[in-house]
């Protein structure tokens, strides 16, 4: 196993674990609140919205996980002085960020 393989695998795993913990706690919170206080609309909404924010945060972490993987690989190729692959991964990151924050 190379250092790069270990670091990239760890990045992916960390992203996946953090995002699923956020989504899991938000999801359980949403379901429990929804069950316990079906008639108190205000209460459901305020706690529901907190739960939903947790889920949304988790989804964002998940979306940024492959992006973090690309960003990390640029650094790793830089360290290896593998200039062609620095360019390759840099291109991928630029296109990714462009399509993420693009003109829509």
């Amino acid at each position: 196993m190379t250092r790069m393989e270990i670091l990239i695998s760890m990045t992916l795993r960390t992203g996946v674990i953090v995002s699923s913990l956020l989504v899991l706690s938000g999801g359980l919170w949403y379901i429990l609140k929804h069950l316990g206080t079906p008639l108190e609309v205000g209460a459901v909404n305020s706690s529901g919205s907190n739960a939903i924010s947790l889920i949304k945060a988790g989804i964002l972490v998940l979306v940024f996980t492959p992006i973090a993987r690309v960003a990390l690989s640029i650094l790793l190729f830089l360290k290896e002085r593998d200039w062609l692959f620095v360019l390759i991964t840099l291109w991928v990151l630029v296109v990714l960020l462009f399509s993420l924050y693009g003109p829509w």
Partner: protein
Amino acid sequence: MNDIVFSLSVFVGSVFAGLIGALTGLGGGVIVVPLLVLLFKVDLHHALGASLISVIATSSGAASAYVREGYTNMRIGMFLEVATTAGAIVGAALLGILPKHLVAFIFGLVLFHSAYTSYKSRHHEEFVSPENSDPLAKKLKLTGYLPTGEGVREYGVKNILAGFGLMSLAGMLSGLLGIGSGAVKVLAMDRVMRLPYKVSTTTSNFMIGVTAAASAGIYLKKGYIDPIVSFPVMLGVLLGAFLGAKLLPSAPTSKLKLVFAIIIALLGIQMVLEALK
């Protein structure tokens, strides 16, 4: 109560989607979309949004294992991501210029043909030896090592430029048709570049997360990624992807090819129906 039943059933279906997605390199989307639309009556936009989340989850979840175990060829994956991302831009630009129905129809036929040839060749696997590699492979250091039943084996790569071209097409198709295009990725690496089958599927799995993340921006902005639909999908798919990654090392290639053939045939039907709508 309905919320719990919905979340639990979607969760269970998504475990299956993640499992199949991780084993075939196609991502969970192929199963998540029909599951949500046909079974749970979720509208198509929100189903596509959840499918995008499922693809990123399958990709990242399974790749964390595949990379560590040495199945994924990361250099090939990153090299080909240049083609898929460039293709996706072209595909998005061609939206409205190329007749979408015709493209979907042709793509559907290609998938039927590929399903048939994958099925027929499922018992046949031959590694390209590193000496017989495309000369570009040495320059780019694209050959690799793969764990097999008989120990670690070195493999080579063929037709890198043709594979690169097909990958741009894969990117275009995903930009144009809104599908993950994992099928084209696996086919390009398996058939054209002659990579070992498990390298092709795990490297495709590695790449599709990036393709999906690129489309996530527009989906998030339009509100198509619904938290209530996405949360059981994401958690289920992740569990399935981890299970799939556990199963892959001991799974026989012929069985994996069979599952792949069935899934891309279903995808072909989906495409042709879409075209005839």
